[in-house]
C-alpha cells in the first residue's frame, strides 16, 4: 500500500481511538449532572441525612472539609520539608536513591492498604479510635508523595543563579532557601497542595476503617469523633442501603464531583497565574 494512504488510514484510526477514550469521560459527567441536578436543593445541602440514607448531606460535606483541612495541616509541613531536603540538601548517594524509591512506593501503595495501616497504627496501636484524627493522619501519608514531588519540582525550577547570588553575599544556606528560593517556588508548591486536597477529599478506601461513620446526624465535636464523608456516604447509599431512590445517590455524587472540580479549578487558575507572572 502507498505509504501516504496508509498514513491517512492509521491517523484516522488514532483519532477514532482518542474519541473512544474521551467519550466515557463526557458521558460520566453528563449522567451525573443530568440526574444529580434534580435533587439538589438548599435543603439537600444543609440538612442531616435521614436514618435510612435519604435526606440531606450537610454533615458529609462538613466531614469531608474537616478531613481535608486536617490532612493539609499535617501533610504540607512534612511534604515541604521533604521537598526542600531533596532539592537543596540531598547528595547523589544511596540514601537519596532510597528516599526517592520510598516516595515512588508510597505513591503506588494501594489506598486500601493505607486503610489497613491507619487501622493498625492510629486506630488500634495509638488508641485514637476510628476518628477524625486517625483519618487525617492516614490521608496525610497517602498524599505526601504529591506534596513532596510538587515542592521538589517547584524548587528545581528556581534558577541556580538566585542561590549563588545570595550565598555570595554571605547569607547562610537556610537564609538563602528561606528568602531567595522558597518565595519563587511558592506557586508551584501551592498547586501541589491543592492537587493533594482534591485527592484527599475524594478518597474512600483509606477512611473506611479509620474515620468514616455510616450515619451521624450531628457534626463531629472533637478530633476523636467519627465523621461522615461524601465519598463514603455515596458508597453506602448507593450499595448498602436498599430502597433509597437512585436520584439521591446521583445528588450526592454531583455534590462530590462539584467539590472536587472546584478544588481543581483553583489549582489550574493558580498555576496559570504563576506562569503569567514568571519573573525570570
Amino acid at each position: 500500500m502507498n505509504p501516504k494512504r496508509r498514513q491517512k488510514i492509521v491517523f484516522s484510526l488514532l483519532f477514532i481511538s482518542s474519541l473512544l477514550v474521551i467519550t466515557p469521560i463526557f458521558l460520566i459527567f453528563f449522567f451525573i449532572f443530568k440526574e444529580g441536578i434534580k435533587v439538589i436543593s438548599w435543603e439537600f445541602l444543609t440538612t442531616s441525612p435521614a436514618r435510612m440514607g435519604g435526606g440531606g448531606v450537610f454533615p458529609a460535606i462538613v466531614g469531608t472539609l474537616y478531613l481535608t483541612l486536617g490532612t493539609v495541616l499535617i501533610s504540607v509541613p512534612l511534604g515541604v520539608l521533604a521537598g526542600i531536603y531533596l532539592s537543596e540538601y540531598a547528595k547523589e548517594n544511596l540514601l537519596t536513591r532510597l528516599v526517592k524509591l520510598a516516595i515512588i512506593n508510597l505513591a503506588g501503595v494501594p489506598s486500601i492498604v493505607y486503610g489497613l495501616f491507619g487501622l493498625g497504627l492510629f486506630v488500634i496501636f495509638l488508641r485514637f479510635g476510628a476518628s477524625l484524627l486517625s483519618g487525617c493522619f492516614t490521608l496525610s501519608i497517602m498524599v505526601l508523595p504529591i506534596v513532596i514531588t510538587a515542592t521538589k519540582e517547584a524548587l528545581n525550577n528556581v534558577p541556580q543563579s538566585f542561590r549563588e547570588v545570595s550565598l555570595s553575599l554571605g547569607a547562610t544556606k537556610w537564609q538563602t532557601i528561606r528568602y531567595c528560593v522558597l518565595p519563587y517556588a511558592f506557586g508551584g508548591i501551592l498547586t501541589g497542595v491543592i492537587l493533594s486536597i482534591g485527592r484527599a477529599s475524594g478518597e474512600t478506601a483509606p477512611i473506611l476503617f479509620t474515620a468514616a461513620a455510616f450515619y451521624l446526624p450531628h457534626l463531629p465535636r472533637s478530633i476523636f469523633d467519627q465523621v461522615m464523608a461524601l465519598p463514603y456516604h455515596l458508597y453506602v447509599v448507593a450499595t448498602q442501603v436498599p430502597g433509597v431512590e437512585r436520584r439521591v445517590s446521583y445528588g450526592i455524587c454531583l455534590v462530590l464531583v462539584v467539590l472536587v472540580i472546584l478544588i481543581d479549578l483553583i489549582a489550574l487558575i493558580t498555576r496559570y497565574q504563576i506562569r503569567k507572572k514568571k519573573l525570570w
Partner: protein
Amino acid sequence: MNLKKIREFIIERLIFLGGMASIIFVILIFAFLLKEGLPFFRIYPLKDFLGGRFWYPISEPVQFGIKPLILGSLIVTGGAILIVVPLGLATAIFIAEIARGKTKEILKCSIEFLETTPSVVIGFIGLVVLAPFIRKVFSLPTGLTALCGSIMLAIMSTPTVVSIMEDAITAVPKVYKEAALAIGATHWQTIWRVILPAASSGIMAAVMLGIGRCIGETMVVLMVTGNAAVIPKTLLQPVRTLTATIASEMGEVVQGSEHYFALFALGIILFSLSFIVNLIADFFIHKGVK
C-alpha cells in the same frame, strides 16, 4: 550570632527528618502489615492460604484460600490492561504527534479532568449505567461482572497510562524525528519505526503503573464486580478481588480474630505486589530514552 546558628541547625535537622519521612512511613506500613498479618500463619497453614480454592471466612470450618481472590484481581486487571493499553497508546501518539491547537487542548483537559475524579464516582457510574447495560446486552442474571470491572478500571487508569506514554513520546529527541523525515520517511513511518522504539521503555513504565493502579484500586471493583469469591472462568461472571475483600470484610470482623489477621495477610500480598510492580516501572523509567 549563636542564636542564629542554633536556629539554622534546628531547621536543617527538621529538613533532614522530613526527607527521611518517606522511608520511615514505608517501613512503618510494612511493619504494621507484618505485625497484624503474620500471626495469621501461626494459626492457619501458609500452604492452604496460598493454594486453597475457597474463601469462606465465616462458615464452619473456616477456609481462607486466596486463589479465587488473586485470580479475581488478575482477571479484572488483565481485562482492563487489554483495553487501556492499545487505546491509551493510540491516544498518546495522537496527542503528542498529530493533534494541534484546540483538539489537543480538549483531549488533554478532559483526561486531566478524569484523573481528579474520585474512584467512588467512577464506581457509581459503573454500578448504575454500565452494569445494567451489560446485563441487557449479554442477557445475564447480573451485570456486576469482571467485564464491568475491567471496563471501569480501564477508564479510571486512562489518565495514568496516557500521560506517562505521552511524556515518553515527547521526550524522544527531536533530531531523531527530523533525521527520519529528512531521508523521506512519512510521518507515520517515523512514528512507528523511530519514535515508538525510542520511547519503548517509557511506554513500558506506563503499562506497569497502569497495572499497579488497577490491582490496587478498591472502590471501583468493590462496587461493580459483584463480589462473589469463586474462581473466575469468564469475564462475564461476578468476581471478587483482593482489595474488595479487605474493604468489605474488615468492617465486620472482630479485632484480633483469625479473620482479622487473614485480611492483614491479604494486605501484605497487595503491598508486595504493588512494590514489585513499582520497582519494575522505576527500572523502565530510569532506562530512559534509548
